[in-house]
């Protein structure tokens, strides 16, 4: 079996240094990675396996990591690649289809952005935590991913683009569509809870 040469070529001192970097810069992100893994797999055990696999890969290639740089983004990218390469391929789950594939989306930036869904402030009074969580989890995985990376983890568009290997325009477009779809779901839920939007419908202008 072929081993990675660098792993066996390093001396004891270098090995200790790698171990220190791993402990100080990489392991502290395990909780964020764990949450990200769960939102990709929606399964606790698969998420734990994915996190472990990510750290094994990170350690294997730790000589490629530049100390003091963006460890979190580096780890998220490894995790995303591990998910795509292994879990999707091995999974017996139905084939994943990108939303963009369905609607024939092109990687154009703002040209892909249509009308923003405008929520009413009163609507938030009708929101229950579980329903919001369910609405988020029911979004397509590509949409859940960008929401988590941007709104929860606070990555920039540029960092998200690098993590997902997509153009920035795609990040922007996915965020726009994810937020709109989530708003539509929340609106629909609020209506079932008795909320009525008393505004006159806006006239949608075309560009």
């Amino acid at each position, binding site marked *: 079996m072929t081993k990675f040469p660098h792993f066996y070529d390093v001396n004891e001192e270098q090995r200790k240094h790698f171990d220190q970097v791993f402990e100080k810069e990489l392991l502290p992100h395990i909780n964020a990675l764990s949450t990200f893994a769960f939102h990709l797999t929606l399964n606790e055990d698969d998420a734990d396996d994915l996190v472990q696999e990510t750290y094994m890969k990170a350690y294997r290639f730790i000589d490629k990591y530049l100390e003091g740089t963006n460890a979190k983004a580096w780890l998220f990218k490894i995790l995303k690649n591990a998910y795509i390469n292994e879990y999707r391929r091995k999974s017996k789950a139905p084939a994943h289809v990108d939303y963009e594939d369905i609607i024939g989306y092109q990687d154009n930036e703002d040209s892909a952005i249509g009308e923003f869904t405008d929520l009413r402030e009163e609507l938030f009074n009708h929101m229950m*935590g579980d329903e919001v969580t369910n609405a988020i989890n029911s979004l397509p995985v590509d949409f859940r991913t960008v929401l988590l990376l941007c709104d929860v983890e606070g990555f920039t568009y540029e960092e998200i683009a690098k993590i997902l290997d997509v153009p920035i325009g795609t990040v922007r477009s996915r965020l726009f569509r994810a937020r709109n779809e989530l708003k539509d779901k929340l609106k629909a839920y609020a209506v079932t809870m008795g909320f009525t939007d008393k505004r006159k419908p806006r006239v949608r202008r075309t*560009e």
Partner: protein
Amino acid sequence: MRNPDPIHEYHRMVNMFLDQQLNDEENRQVLHQAQENPEFQRVLRTEQNFRDLIKKNVVQRPQASSRILENIRSRISNKENL
């Protein structure tokens, strides 16, 4: 080409602002507009509430168990799959 609908433009600016995609001068303009324009202020407040709702309700997993950490350290120590 930008959408001439002012509400659309407010949303676009607010999203860029909250996603930290604007420079310092543009950030100042957004804050100024929020003070001067009630409709813009409403869009900003609603979008901020929406983001807070997402943060609050995204399932955050509890701290990684010591078992996972031990597994990772053990596999590295044993040079398993390395």
